[in-house]
């Protein structure tokens, strides 16, 4: 049907495309400004740091001539604004300097660890969606009932949960006591050296290679931390779903749908949720971004080799290049997800499409 529609009216289609193009342009502009701000903030953080960055590179006991040479080499003798331009220029090329800890370029480190975080946050969000949406819908439909109240309390507990603590308790109960899941890390020792990742997303890699032993092991590692993140995400998603659904269920089209004789299930899932889905996409993107943030603490608890663990390890070792690089990358992903959610909103709502 939609194919016939678009071929019938090429003019309409290109108009849509250009409107979308304009929106895209606006987003790119906003993203660029926000990203520059992000870099400026991290630059500022790097400046207020009491540690002399040059000494951090060459060491405290380096002779004065070496320090001076390094100062010149890294541009620390330039005026601050020139240093900033240099920093921006390098950051845009993905150059955040070298990590003192790993001795590799920071960006290379991040590229190595990022898939682990991506996988964890993705599985977490999926779990959050799987439980959050039905619970939110149920709470809205049974508004004011015991179920509604229960969903509200479960959600508020999720909001109040120190996730690192929940992670520790989870490890204690499900790993140490019950033995239902694997412990810290991403993959068991038995597979660590035989398994060669392709995408870096181990679950996906295991499927691609049809290696079900690895899949089971990886799954058993990821399920606990992902469930905990999923709980946090569920708290947020269920709450927003409830509020959007209440709004939709009060609309006239719901009355019309009832007047047509549709079943309540069809009205709830086929009409109201479909309408609520438009703003919900924004929420899901934001929740995904929040999980990237939440992963910092979760990864620390579960020794999950992602960007969060990388960041905290660098913090504890005063590896400032790595800290700022990771901050910029996480911030950039955060910004990107925010903008993407706006864009998706425009794409999904037929009212804003035309």
């Amino acid at each position, binding site marked *: 049907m939609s194919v016939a529609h678009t071929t019938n009216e090429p003019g309409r289609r290109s108009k849509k495309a250009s409107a979308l193009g304009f929106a895209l342009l606006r987003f790119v502009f906003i993203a660029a400004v926000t990203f520059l701000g992000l870099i400026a903030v991290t630059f500022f953080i790097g400046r207020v740091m009491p540690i002399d960055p040059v000494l951090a590179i060459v060491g405290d006991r380096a002779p004065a001539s070496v320090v001076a040479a390094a100062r010149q080499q890294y541009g620390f003798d330039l005026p601050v604004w020139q240093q900033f331009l240099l920093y921006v220029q390098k950051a845009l090329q993905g150059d955040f300097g070298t990590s003192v800890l790993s001795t590799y370029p920071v960006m290379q480190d991040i590229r190595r660890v990022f898939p682990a975080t991506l996988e964890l946050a993705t599985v977490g969000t999926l779990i959050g969606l799987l439980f959050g949406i039905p619970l939110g819908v149920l709470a809205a439909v049974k508004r004011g009932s015991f179920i509604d109240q229960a969903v509200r309390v479960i959600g508020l507990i999720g909001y109040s949960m120190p996730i690192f603590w929940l992670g520790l308790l989870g490890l204690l109960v499900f790993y140490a006591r019950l033995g239902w899941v694997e412990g810290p890390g991403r993959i068991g020792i038995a597979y660590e050296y035989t398994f060669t990742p392709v995408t870096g997303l181990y679950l996906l890699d295991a499927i691609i290679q049809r290696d079900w032993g690895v899949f089971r092991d990886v799954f058993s590692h990821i399920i606990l931390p992902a469930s905990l993140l999923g709980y946090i995400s569920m708290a947020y998603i269920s709450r927003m779903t409830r509020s959007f659904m209440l709004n939709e269920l009060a609309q006239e089209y719901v009355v*019309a749908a009832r007047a047509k*004789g549709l079943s309540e299930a069809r009205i709830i899932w086929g009409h109201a949720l479909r309408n609520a889905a438009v703003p919900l996409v924004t929420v899901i993107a934001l929740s995904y971004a929040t999980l990237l943030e939440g992963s910092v603490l979760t990864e620390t608890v579960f020794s999950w080799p992602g960007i969060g663990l990388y960041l905290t390890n660098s913090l504890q070792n005063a590896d400032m290049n790595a800290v700022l690089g990771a901050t910029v990358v996480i911030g950039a992903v955060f910004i990107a997800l925010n903008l993407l959610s706006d864009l998706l909103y425009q794409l999904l709502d037929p009212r804003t499409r035309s």
Partner: protein
Amino acid sequence: MSVDKNLLEVENLKVRFPTRTGVIEAVRGVSFSLGRERLGIVGESGSGKSQTGRAIMGLTDPRAEVTADRLEFDGIDLRSLPARERRALRGKRVAMILQDPKYSLDPVISIGRQIVETLRTHEKVSRAEARERALDMLAAVQIRDPKRVFDLYPHEVSGGMGQRAMIAMMLVAGPELLIADEPTSALDVTVQLDVLAILDRLVADRGMGLIFISHDLRLVSSFCDRVVVMYAGKVVEQLPASELANAQHPYTQGLLDCMPKIGADRHPLPVLARKAEWAA
């Protein structure tokens, strides 16, 4: 009951909303009967006319309490009908048109799919056949290019077109009773008459019963066979539309007086009288 040839029998219908501050009685003992004719229900906003229509449909808010001595559609007692069977009636045998197509059509589903949905809820028809019948229905409400409109979203059409789509959606399964709740109030004056004419023809051609709910007495009197006048949840007067000029009740007379007549003296400007004893 079978002696009764009437499509709808309503006796002493009451709708009450319990709230924190007390019970609000929206409809307080309304009675009327309807054959395959056009009945107008007129009243000010808050007179309970819309709640009467919704109670017949079974669409009253679940927190409200609906009672009646008699509430029958085609001999079926609606009061004791299980929810599932009541639902099967809606859309199939009894349908309702709401006020503003801007809000009463689902904004994220194309018009065609919303019409098809009604049909496929009540009849086992193939996708292709449902589409054909939806297109026919769109043509029947005088939409010139049904194929194009079929794929449009509600926000992409005008108010008049939207209301025609709404009529198509509600009539596609061939109901015998249609409740139209202010179906033209949200439309431009110029398209009101078009939509009314379409509605009128469809009701006549299909031999349906129609309950036309409106605040506009003139519209109702020109469009309906009989008129029920409601005030504060009660029926104050019931009479054939042709005899409206001879209305007995002061409230009806007041409503009539509010309408300007060409050439008549406009001084003093009449004010609608409302007396507490009418509501008693």
